[in-house]
């Protein structure tokens, strides 16, 4: 079978410019993209650089963009991406500095990992094996499956505009320790994660969930930590006010009160923020539109508000 592969090339020793190079290579029907790239390197172009090791989706070395989205190429078959022999575009991961061709600099990734103190913190030195319940470990297994391939970071829409954001991989790792019953520092961890560059900067775009080859679902862990931070009393954030206002609006009206949400999330004491909102409001008004003073309500609104009331109380009791 012929695989047509377009590779984004970059060699700073020759030029700062990147360019695409097309390859055509004969591979077996069940070949992975990694098999094809290795074959290209061995048979056609020894200058092509890529990183790989285990070839069995365990080591996390070969993450790269396949048709615009990060994948482990050892786990991705040519046939799956190109059933009719279409060109496959291969690029290095996004949100990483490229060293050469498909090889990215991982320093920023490791420093973010280190920043969340990825180890169990206890006030004492255990004398024997420090055992956690099976139940808690089963829960954490999902996050512990992370092989640190960087695919989630590659596609993170928040890191794309703000490289200081802690990011999905390190935040998922932080959750692994926040939710570990042996760890004694969950509160201070959550306090730190509640600050700028932490859990509230996630856009909830689901890109990390979509590309993770191990179903770690980083975004879901981030959202869970928002909730845990609130439970620990970290409530002085616009993120907290936003969630609360949204929830109240549905409890009261069954639908979203956009005007109130904007005001309350901004914070009623945040004068410059409020002026900013007013500007947009006036502009909208001049175009003949503005959110209604009272939100649009569902028919039989009380049925919705009573469900919200009931389940809100149920949620509180469970806590």
């Amino acid at each position: 079978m012929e695989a047509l592969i377009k590779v984004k090339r970059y060699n700073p020793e020759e030029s700062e410019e990147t360019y695409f190079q097309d390859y055509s290579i004969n591979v077996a029907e069940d070949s992975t993209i990694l098999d094809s790239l290795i074959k290209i390197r061995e048979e056609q172009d020894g200058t092509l650089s890529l990183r790989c090791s285990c070839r069995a989706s365990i080591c996390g070395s070969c993450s790269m963009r396949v048709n615009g989205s990060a994948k482990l190429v050892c786990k991705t078959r040519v046939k799956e991406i190109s059933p009719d022999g279409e060109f496959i575009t291969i690029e290095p991961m996004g949100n990483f500095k490229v060293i050469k061709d498909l090889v990215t600099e991982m320093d920023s990734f490791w420093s973010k990992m280190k920043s969340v103190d990825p180890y169990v913190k206890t006030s004492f030195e255990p004398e024997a094996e420090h055992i956690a319940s099976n139940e808690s470990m089963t829960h954490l297994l999902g996050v512990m499956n992370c092989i640190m391939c960087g695919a989630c970071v590659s596609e993170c829409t928040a890191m794309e505009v703000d490289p200081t954001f802690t990011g999905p991989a390190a935040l998922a790792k932080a959750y692994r320790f926040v939710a570990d019953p042996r760890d004694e520092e969950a509160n201070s961890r959550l306090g730190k994660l509640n600050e700028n560059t932490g859990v509230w900067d996630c856009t909830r775009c689901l890109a990390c969930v979509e590309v993770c080859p191990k179903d770690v679902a980083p975004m879901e862990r981030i959202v869970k930590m928002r909730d845990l931070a609130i439970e620990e009393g970290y409530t002085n954030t616009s993120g907290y006010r936003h969630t609360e206002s949204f929830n109240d609006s549905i409890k009261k009206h069954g639908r979203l009160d956009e005007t109130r949400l904007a005001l309350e999330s901004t914070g009623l004491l945040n004068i410059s923020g409020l002026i900013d909102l007013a500007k947009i409001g006036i502009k909208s008004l001049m175009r003949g539109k503005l959110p209604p003073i009272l939100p649009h309500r569902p028919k039989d609104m009380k049925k919705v508000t009573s469900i919200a009331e009931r389940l809100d109380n149920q949620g509180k009791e469970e806590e």
Partner: protein
Amino acid sequence: MKFAFYPGCVARGAAPELYKSTMMVVDKLGIELEEIEKAACTGAGVLQEKNQKLGDVLNVRTLALAEQMGLPIMTICSTCQGVISQANHRVVNDQDYLDEINEELAKEDLHYSGKTEVKHLLWILLEDIGVEPLQKMFNIDLSGFNFAPFYGCYLIRPSDALGMTKNPKRKHSLDIVIESTGAKSTDYEGKTRCCGFPILLINQKNSLKMVAKHTGDAKDNGADAMVTPCPLCHLNLDGYQAKARKQNKRGKADLPILHLPQLIGMAMGLDPKELGVNKHLVSTANFIKSIKSKVA
């Protein structure tokens, strides 16, 4: 062709022109709509952060209301579509959870069996109407125009809940619809990225960087306007474009942002002003002029 209509809070609030243009367009498309008047807000993923079950109950309730009406649901908001699809996906794959939610719904004499189909207008155009019949309804050839698609995260991810395997065209649906009008679909990286709206009130600096990047990149790649099936993306990309472009040194706010039904309506030959194209905060005056020159 009849659907249970779920317009969403924004079409009923900050973006009334979306509601109006939808109504004008469905009329021409031969789609009959019956609004699910009792439906609540989907929670947009925000409510779910605080109380996943409450979010799921409210969305399954909407699915049950449609089931009672005997109709599939039509949405006009990527976020609504995504959040309802996610809830639907969770319950149809977990009978115990569905039973638990049905217990809540029983208090209102409602029951969901798991059969309601939920579709965004964008998918209906491709899957229920079809490109060729759609093109027959177009009266104006928009060739020469270049429109940047902007999907909205929840209409693209997660692909399993959105049925992308069964309907792979959904991944490119907006590109296909734009091209069906004769226009070119702008090729730029940002079309499936985040518009920044979810963090607008939390981290405005980052949110506006996203607006500036996507609108600026689309413009640099030749776009005359951007088209989105998501009114939340619209709020940010239109409402905050001026501030975002200025703050991030990406020039002036010069990229009109259109709702999907406004594009379809214009291709049908409906009056841009009637469709509310002049209601946006980024000026659309020159754009409307160029559309009108096509009519003449």
